[in-house]
């Protein structure tokens, strides 16, 4: 068991480093951080002083080596804009993104799974068709557009929810719905096909022959097997959501990692981007590992083999 986790850990680090190297190259090529920090009306002298101040005048490999050296000792360097250690910056904002991710996951689960189960229990009925209709249309709605419409409807026309910011839980309702809605189709479809397949399996027929029927059959025998693949998909999606949704967070002005990523990428705040990517890669692989472990815990065939 330990060997397996160690292997995945090494994979996580390898992925994190390759991705951060790629990001470092892309960023340096795309924009000149010094000019981004200096802003619009900066004279060349100002740009030069900034370049010296942040050591941007050294060649790229040297700067990457410095950054790497720091990372090994846990120091991810200082943000050019925020003048504070990036680790602190990420820690501050991680809370908002985690809350949003969990809320969005709750929205997905509360909508997708019941819908999927109902659709599977009576295939080709009107519930099935509406469930598929919801899935198809939710998949077709651009989430940035959905966000704007939500603000127009529920913050301005009917001022129920606050427009932006992340102070109270009320601030998270609309963003969670928008972020959650994007992954409803996939989860709903997976639940539906999974349950339909399980309901046709031999061991369900055996259970029926022992007198199980209706709700007890569903809860005791069918659901547990049907939801196995769904759980690993949810874990992976949660991993992606921990990476922060760039669009949802910027539309609702939530101070999460997503918005931080967007601004630091557009503003070429390299240390912040590096750390964010590093964190995203690690979180992503860890969530994959978690999905595997969860699967093994729930499915004896994998655990005991």
């Amino acid at each position, binding site marked *: 068991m330990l060997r397996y986790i160690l292997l995945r850990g090494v994979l996580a680090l390898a992925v994190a480093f390759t991705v951060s190297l790629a990001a470092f190259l892309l960023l340096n090529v795309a924009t000149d951080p010094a000019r981004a920090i200096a802003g619009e009306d900066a004279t060349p002298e100002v740009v030069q002083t900034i370049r010296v101040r942040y050591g941007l005048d050294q060649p790229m490999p040297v700067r990457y080596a410095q950054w790497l050296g720091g990372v090994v000792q846990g120091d991810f360097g200082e943000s050019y804009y925020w003048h504070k250690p990036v680790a602190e910056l990420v820690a501050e904002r991680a809370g908002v993104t985690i809350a949003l991710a969990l809320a969005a996951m709750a929205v997905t689960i509360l909508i997708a799974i019941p819908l999927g189960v109902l659709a599977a229990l009576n295939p080709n009925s009107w519930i099935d068709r509406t469930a598929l209709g919801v899935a198809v249309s939710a998949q077709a709605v651009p989430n940035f557009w959905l966000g704007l419409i939500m603000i127009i409807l529920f913050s301005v026309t009917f001022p129920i929810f606050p427009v932006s910011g992340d102070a109270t839980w009320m601030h998270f309702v609309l963003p969670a719905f928008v972020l959650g809605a994007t992954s409803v189709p996939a989860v709903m479809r997976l639940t539906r096909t999974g349950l339909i397949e399980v309901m046709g399996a031999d*061991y369900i027929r*055996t259970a029926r022959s*022992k*007198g199980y029927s209706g709700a007890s059959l569903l809860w005791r025998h069918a659901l547990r*097997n049907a939801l*196995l693949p769904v759980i690993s998909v949810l874990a992976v999606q949660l991993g992606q959501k921990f990476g922060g949704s760039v669009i949802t967070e910027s539309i609702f002005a939530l101070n999460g990692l997503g918005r931080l990523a967007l601004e630091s990428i557009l503003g070429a705040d390299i240390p912040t981007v590096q750390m964010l990517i590093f964190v995203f890669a690690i979180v992503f692989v860890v969530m994959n590992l978690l999905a595997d472990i969860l699967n093994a815990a729930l499915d*004896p065939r994998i655990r005991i083999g």
Partner: protein
Amino acid sequence: MAPLLEIRNLSVSLELPNARLHAVRGATVSLDRGQTLGIVGESGSGKSMTALALMRLLPRGAEVNLDRLAFDSQDLTAVPDAVFAREILGRRMAMIFQEPMTSLNPVYTIGRQLTEASVRQGVLSAKVAHQRAIALLDRTGIPDPAGRMSQYPHQLSGGQRQRVMIAMALMMEPELLIADEPTTALDVTVQAQILELLAGLQCEMGMAMILISHDLAVVSEHTDRVAVMYGGEMIEEGRAAEVMAAAKHPYTQALLKAIPRMDGPPVKLAAIPGTVPSTTSIPKACIFASRCDFVRDVCRSGRPPVQGSDEHWRRCILGETELATQRQASPVAAMVRKAVEASTAPVIEARDIVQVFQSRRGLFGPKKEIRAVDGVNLTLKRGETLALVGESGSGKSTLARVMLGLSLPTSGSVLMRGKTLGGMSPRERAALVQPVFQDPYSSLNPRRTLAEIIVRPLELRGDGNSQTRLARVREVMDMVRLPQRLIHNYPAQLSGGQRQRVAIARALVTSPEALVCDEPTSALDVSVQAQILNLLTDLQANLGLSCLVITHDMGVVHQIANRVAVMLKGKLVEEGSTDAVLNHSSHEYTRTLLAAAPRFRAEETRLEFSGHE
């Protein structure tokens, strides 16, 4: 006393995407307490559907209508589903299924699955249920029953899982046990034990049993009465011994002649031509008319009447006397089996083949080594049919793949015409040996037409142009007796038998010297198996092919093989001519294999068992 179970005129129709399939029409059956009824028929005959209708386990969209369904003289049609599920299913009627590998819930322990139904319905307390489960597991012959309770289904073998299924069915001591092809997926030796077990339990618990199978031999040994089904209708029913000895319906007769018999010299099998008609519309004529040898105009105009006594009736217009005369009229041509001289040149030689596989138990378990083939020497001589016999896990398929050159052995070598397989180019090897696989549905590329499939090996060798190749394809299709008009059809449009013929045609197109057939007929119905076996013997005679046939069915060995090799756990335990091995085998394992194979003891009825009647 009133029969335990009475079914009259049961019809089942299933909903297909674009039609309704009338799977069962007018099934009438009755069963007394403690009695065993066998329902036999080929695939698609509706035998399973009848049982599922009884247990109300039909798939969604199925329709059942019947005149009378009484269980212990209680009219079941009046019982609503919920009450039926709670009071009848599991407590008074139980069922075991064909596929042990998938019939148990993979995520729950054996113990829980055994006890949960009885505890939930309050029939037994948890403690009593637990003890009863262990007792039943022990009775069904599972080693260390207490330990098994906490294990999961995937940790048990096929045979053990079937025993668990039987224990589970008997937890609440049902009065009727329905066994739907209980042993089809198991090895011959295990099959015999399970059938013995079922018979024993039935006597002990005085249960009535319905045994559904496609294997006439199994049914003839283990049932009191037998009903023969074809195309969704019951065409003959009577006492088992009588039906087997003097079948009164042409289909049953043809079926009995299509089964390779172990007693007496090999006989040319009577294959039934054509395929089972589709029952998407209710047929007006006799269902067997399209394939019957004695068909008359009247058979095609109306449904044949039921003739014969309650003891033994059949649905056919032929009178008692006409049938009897027909039976003698068709003499059975004995086949002579050439003995193979030791001196003939070898075609394929396998020298001390060892094949080891690595497998990891579970995601985190340690790596384990499995020696599938452990030092085997085998030679296939020119013009002979060598049968390689063994149970699942004996390594016979692995050896076959090695001799085909599809996988390189861990050690040892395979020679063809003196040259090692490894040294040969794939194209050279293709000219020497070709495979025929077991499952007709996965041996042909669904996306290609027949022409493309059969011509492919020629294209790969690149000899001749498209005309010569097409001619060769047509020639080979005639050889395997495939109608030319099918040349542009897709595999999905053919029957199992036809597909296996295409596979053989593909193997023959490069005119190889040897064929390696891995269980060529075990996935086919008896009547279709007879066609393929006859084809193989004819081809071998006409083309002088040497065939290596892998099988677990002693009947097939007896029918077509000149020599036999028996494998057990990766080792060759016995090798010799068919007569030597079958009649006075030297190895104890071969003897158990032969004993386990179901045979037609036409005369020995089941009287000694049913003494208690």
